[in-house]
């Protein structure tokens, strides 16, 4: 699945859910600060994308890859992302503002940094997983 195809759908879904024009949405826009979504809007967008692509999406999916990469080391302690966790996030979530991935960042604060690109990436990741499972 190409990023360009997913972007079109993600923008349409955001437009439908939030009521802003899809033409005003950029790939690097943060979902919360720039687009003005809140956590319920994000849930709504994830539900719509789930229905469109027939995959299951959760808010926690954004950091699943980072958590998987951590092997035995903790990704977060009491909700605060560890130094190693931040390192992995910088590697896998290159779309996030690196200046915001600083010590003391919590799991909840990370959600506020998500961008339209993050949404697209998680959809693509889930579609790839689905395709692998179908092939198996």
């Amino acid at each position, binding site marked *: 699945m190409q990023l360009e195809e997913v972007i079109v759908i993600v923008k349409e879904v955001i437009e439908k859910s939030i009521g802003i024009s899809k033409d005003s949405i950029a790939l690097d826009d943060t979902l919360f600060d720039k687009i003005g979504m809140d956590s*319920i809007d994000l*849930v*709504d967008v994830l*539900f*719509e994308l*789930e*229905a469109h692509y027939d995959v299951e999406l959760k808010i926690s999916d954004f950091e699943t890859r980072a958590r998987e990469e951590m092997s035995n080391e903790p990704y977060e302690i009491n909700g605060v992302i560890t130094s190693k966790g931040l390192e992995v996030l910088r590697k896998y979530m290159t779309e996030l503002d690196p200046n915001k991935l600083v010590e003391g960042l919590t799991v909840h604060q990370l959600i506020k940094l998500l961008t339209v690109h993050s949404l697209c990436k998680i959809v693509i990741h889930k579609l790839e997983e689905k395709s692998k499972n179908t092939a198996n």
Partner: protein
Amino acid sequence: MNLGLKDKVVLITGATGEIGRQIALDFLIEDSIVVCLYRNAEKFEALKKWIECENCFSKKLYGIRCELSEQKEIIDAVNETVKQHNKIDVLVNCAGNAHEYPFAMMEERHIDDMLNHNLKNTLLITQAVLKPMFKMKSGSIVNISSVAGSKAGRGIVVYSAAKAAIDSFTRTLASEVGKKNIRVNCVRPGAVKTQMSKALEDRAAEKLTDQIVLGRIGKPAEIAKAVLFLASDITASYITGATIDVDGGLMF
């Protein structure tokens, strides 16, 4: 008054109970499509017979067997309802149970049971139903709580705590999903003539009615009327996060 509930898809838990079955009947009278989640097939068959005995057709009454403590079964039941009827307009959380027992003597498993039946199961089914409601950008959820959640009473400590939590759940969920046009409200029955309240009635009928402004115990039909009022987008389109006490004016 037309409540606009014709062909609305109504999912009900606890419909085989005496209040629940009256709620199911009243929705059927309004020509809604009623889907009951039941645990006991015999009780669901009894419900169908009772509905027919009340001179109401049961052809728009459907049942799905579902263990409400199992999240997967709940999700499957919700998906099945959407598959069959395309949507869920209304959820009525009526499942629950109460039996009097001194808190100081309750075992952990009894506390868990009471909290699961009266609180956790409601949270799980509500969470599952939100997905189709978000998709439609509309929905109405009516929780059946109890005046026990706000009044004192012996032997009902955990039940009362669970019902108070349902009241709070109603208010907070309403604020969370309101902008997606989903309304969440609550009906708090007082003493209602059912098997569940029989022990209380048998023990203290006179004392109890003395404490009720209207001087009598309520009927399941009087609870159902409030539920339909809140479920309807015509009568309650601007009501959310509300709790209606249907208790005849209980004073204690």
